[in-house]
């Protein structure tokens, strides 16, 4: 383990404790008198109807999908950008091909109309 990552590992352990402490204090200090009316979920003042599930549009999935593809692109592009000083024109060309191919995907999604919010 490199020393700079040791910091991150310890931080990942400690950071949630920062959030747990206020919740614990709140639990200790606050009153504890729950009742069914108080615990009802909020629905603009009327009684709650059914459970929380509604049928979602497939649109949400599409946005996440395009995002996943660009995320992977980032995983490739960040090391290349970090090595930019040592790259030649061929490398830039290959990266450009990579980006243009993925931009094609975006164009397809656009042309197909899946990016329209309906």
């Amino acid at each position, binding site marked *: 383990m490199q*020393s700079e990552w040791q910091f991150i590992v310890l*931080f990942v352990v400690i950071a949630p404790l920062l*959030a747990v402490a206020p919740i614990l204090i709140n639990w200790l200090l606050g009153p504890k008198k729950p009742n069914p009316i108080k615990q009802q979920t909020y*629905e603009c003042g009327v009684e709650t109807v059914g459970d*929380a599930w509604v049928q*979602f*549009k*497939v649109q949400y999935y599409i946005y996440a999908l395009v995002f996943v593809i660009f995320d992977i692109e980032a995983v490739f592009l960040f090391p290349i*950008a970090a090595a930019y000083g040592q790259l030649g024109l061929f490398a830039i060309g290959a990266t450009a091909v990579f980006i243009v191919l993925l931009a094609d995907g975006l164009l397809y999604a656009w042309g197909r109309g899946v990016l329209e919010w309906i």
Partner: protein
Amino acid sequence: MSFNIGEFISSIFDLTAGDYLASVWGTEPWVSVVLDILGILIVATIPLLSVFFVGLIERKVLARMQDRIGPNRVGGKYGLLQMFADVVKMLTKELLVPAGADKVAYFLAPILSLATSALLFAVVPFAPGVIGTNLGVGVFYVLSISSVSVVALLLAGWGSNNKYALLGAFRAVAQLVSYEVPMILSLLVPIILASSMSTMEIVEAQAIPFVIFAPISALIFFVSSLAETGRSPFDLLEAESEIVAGFHTEYSGMVFGLFMAAEYMGIMFMCFLFSTTYLGGYRFFGLEEIVVGNGFQLGRLLGLFITIFKGALVFFVFMWLRATLPRLRIDQLLNFNWKFMVPLMLMILLTVALLDRLILDYIPQVGDAGRAGIHLVSNIIIGLAGIEVLRRSARRQRQRHNTTSTVLAVAENEGAPIFVAAEVEPAYGHDDHGHDAHAPVPAH
């Protein structure tokens, strides 16, 4: 080497207390662990505590912009203790768990939200050599942590067992993941220009701030950081006219306070990240010799002040926009991202990558200033072209609206999901796709 209180205090002013303690304690493994834990406590708690301050400032500034006074009772004339009073109130409220809630998800959400916001600060370079940990992949680390924070919203929405919370969470996630794409692309530009991913080295490379190299890309980064932190005009995460309070509808007391604190910490971090990647971090034209040089003991402190000053400047623009702009509709928001910012940013990225290579290979004699000038010109040309395209498409859209009959125009407007009702599909199952919710759904 033995401990000397005078040297210790002077090392604190020099912002090198860690190095001093390391030299006193030696090189045993536990020393690095203890020093890391001390560093983590500093890096995590100072942003957390400055939320008190930043929140108050924002309330005061917003109030002044809207011709109000703002908090002015608690803690004297300026309401200095207002945020403390708020926290005391939050801490003494009942910890309510809504009926039917998924307790694991319900409590994990605020914890994850705050933890990720705190983790972001590990790589902010505050002054030369003053950084939580100088990761070689700093900017990439920031991206990965901020993409984890999206999960917290989903957990909150799911855990609350509330329709508005779930819808709000879904919308928020759609917005955040969409705007993460231009943010990724615009962060690549400083990395290319500095040829490194480490935040420290990006700052070191900015003899001329990168905002001068690529102002349009800086603007795109700024806009997407607004959207990532859910600030106005992109505050659809909590659009109270549509989805009550979004994903934190069912949260109250300190659990809600944690979401609030995480939001402010995220905003502060984005301000620092913008000033690190585009505004030159702790460097400032004339002062950088003093800041970077080691001869003067106040050098690092000066760097700290410059960093905070730049961050505060960006934060002021955040507040200014919040006081000025109305909220966007979600279709406008997503269209603007996918159909304008992402293509434009791809163009800028390709141009910067190609141009910089050509400059470095063929005309290295132009120096830093010439390089900046060439990039600036190309960037502005692309930006103007983008704006022209935008204007044309807006004109086309207006013409289309004018030619269609008024009735149709109204119907089109209603088709846009201004109301929750338009977004909730009837739960018939078969067609979870784009029917206008007002139209009767044919039974299959």
